[in-house]
C-alpha cells in the first residue's frame, strides 16, 4: 500500500517541479484576475449604488464571495488538465502507462494536486498587492463549523473539477479535437458554478434545480460555505452527501470512458 502511494508521491513531486517552472505564467494569470476583480467591483458597485442589498447581501459580502471564488479557482479549478490528457492520448504518450503498474487517473490527479498547490499559492501574491483596497470590502463569518464542513466540501469540489476535466480529456479516444466541447462546457460550468454571479440570486426554483447538478459543487458550494451564503449546517451536510454522490458518479464515468476508450485506442509511435 505504502509502495503504491510512494510512486504517486513521486508523480506529485515531479508535477510540483514542472509547475514551478511555469510560476510566471500563473503569476501573470493571477495578475489578469485582478482586472477581472476590477470588473466585478465596478459592475456590482454600480448595481449596489441603486439598492443597499442585493439578494439579502451587501456589497462587502458580495465582493468577499467573488474574491473567495477567485482563490478557489486557483486552488481547485481545472486549468488545462483536459488538454494535457487529450494530448497524451493523441500523441501516444499513454502507452507507457499501459505497460506499468500505474493508475492513470491517480497519476494525473497527483500532478493536478501539485499544479494547484503552486497556482493556489501564487494567487495570494496579486491579492496581497491589492489588499490595501480589498481589505475594506472583505467580511467573513466567524463560525468554526464552517471550516469543519467547508474543507471536506473543498476536497470533494477538487475531485468534481478534476473528474469532469478527466472525462473531457478521455473524449480524445473518440474525437480528434475536443477544444470545442471543453470551451462549450466551460461556459456552462462558469454560469452554473457561480463564477459569473452568486447562484442564490437566480429565481428560487432554478437555484433549487442547480443544487442537483455537479456544477453547483465545483465552486459555489465551498465558496458559499466560507462566505456565509449557506448558513444551515443540516442543509450543508445534505449538500455534502449530494456532492459525494457526484464524485462517485464522475469517478465511475471516468473509469468507464477509460476502459471503453482503450478498446478503441491504437498505440502509435515508438
Amino acid at each position: 500500500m505504502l509502495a503504491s502511494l510512494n510512486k504517486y508521491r513521486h508523480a506529485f513531486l515531479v508535477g510540483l517541479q514542472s509547475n514551478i517552472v511555469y510560476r510566471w505564467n500563473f503569476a501573470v494569470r493571477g495578475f489578469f484576475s485582478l482586472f477581472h476583480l476590477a470588473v466585478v467591483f465596478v459592475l456590482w458597485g454600480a448595481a449596489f449604488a441603486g439598492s443597499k442589498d442585493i439578494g439579502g447581501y451587501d456589497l462587502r459580502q458580495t465582493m468577499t464571495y467573488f474574491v473567495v471564488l477567485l482563490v478557489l479557482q486557483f486552488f481547485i479549478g481545472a486549468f488545462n488538465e483536459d488538454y494535457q490528457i487529450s494530448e497524451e492520448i493523441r500523441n501516444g504518450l499513454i502507452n507507457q502507462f499501459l505497460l506499468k503498474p500505474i493508475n492513470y487517473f491517480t497519476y494525473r490527479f497527483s500532478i493536478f494536486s501539485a499544479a494547484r498547490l503552486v497556482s493556489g499559492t501564487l494567487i495570494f501574491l496579486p491579492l496581497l498587492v491589492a489588499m490595501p483596497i480589498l481589505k475594506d470590502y472583505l467580511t467573513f463569518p466567524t463560525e468554526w463549523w464552517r471550516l469543519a464542513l467547508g474543507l471536506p466540501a473543498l476536497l470533494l469540489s477538487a475531485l468534481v473539477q478534476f473528474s469532469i476535466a478527466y472525462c473531457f480529456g478521455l473524449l480524445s479516444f473518440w474525437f480528434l479535437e475536443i477544444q470545442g466541447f471543453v470551451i462549450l462546457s466551460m461556459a456552462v460550468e462558469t454560469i452554473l458554478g457561480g463564477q459569473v454571479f452568486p447562484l442564490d440570486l437566480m429565481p428560487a426554483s432554478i437555484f433549487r434545480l442547480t443544487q442537483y447538478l455537479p456544477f453547483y459543487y465545483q465552486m459555489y458550494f465551498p465558496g458559499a460555505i466560507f462566505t456565509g451564503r449557506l448558513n444551515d449546517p443540516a442543509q450543508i451536510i445534505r449538500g455534502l452527501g449530494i456532492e459525494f454522490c457526484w464524485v462517485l458518479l464522475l469517478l465511475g464515468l471516468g473509469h468507464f470512458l477509460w476502459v471503453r476508450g482503450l478498446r478503441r485506442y491504437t498505440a502509435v509511435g515508438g
Partner: protein
Amino acid sequence: MLHYLKIWLATARYSIVRTLMFRGDFFVWSLVELFWMTVNILLISVIYRHTASIAGWSKYEMMLLVGTSMLIQRLLMGFFWSSIFEMGRNVRTGHFDFFLAQPGNVMFMATTRKLDPDGLLNSFLAAGLVIYSARELGLHPGWMDVLLYLFLILCGLAIHYSVLVLSTSAVFWLTSAQGVEGGYFTLTEFSRIPREAFKGVPNILFVWLLPVVVVSNAPARTLLPGFDWRWVLWLFALAVIWLALAVYVFHRGLRRYASASS
C-alpha cells in the same frame, strides 16, 4: 487596393470551403460563441432582477450596450482572431516565413489569412440583441444614427484589432505570447459596463488611458438618448492612434524575426 481585396476574397473563399468540410466543428464552435454570449445576457438579467438601474442605465439600455460590445468582439473573432492567434505560434515555430514570401504587406497577409464563419454568424445574433433592445426601449433611430453607429463599430473593431496585434507582436521579442488571449478577454469585460459606473482610478485607467470602455459606450450612445459628438471624434482619434501604433510595433518586431531552424 483591388489587389488586396482579391487576395482577401480568395482567403475568404478558402475559409468557407474549409468550414463546409468540417460542418460538425462549425456547429460546435457556433454553439460555443452562442453560449458565451448567453453568459453575459444572463448576468445582466440576474442583476436587474434585484435592481432597477446600473449607473443610471436601465435593463434594456445595458442589453444594448452588451449587444454592441459583443458585436465588435464577434466581428473580431470572425475576421481576424484565428489569424492573429496563429501568428504568435507561427513566429515561434518559424512558419511565419510563409507570410514573408507572399505578394503583399506582411501584416495584412498574416492577420487576414483565416475567416471564422461561426464568429460572423454570431455577430448577427449580437446585432439581433441590439435591435431587440432598441425596440424594447422604443427607440426609432434615423438613417444617420444607424450609419454613425456602424461607423463607430468599425472604429471599435480597428481598436480591438490593433490591441490584439500589439499584444501578439510581443512574440517577436519574447518568443512566446501565450496567455495574451486571456488578457484580451479580461479587458473586453470592461466594455460591457456603462462609462458612468467608473469612478476614481478605474475611471482614469479604463476610460481615459485604455480604450476598453469607450469602444462600446460610444456606438451605444449614438442610439440612446444623451448622444454627444465628442464621443465620435474621441473614438475615431483613438482608432487612428492605436492602428498606427500597431503598424509601427508590428514592423519593428518584424525586423527582429530570425525564423527558426527545422
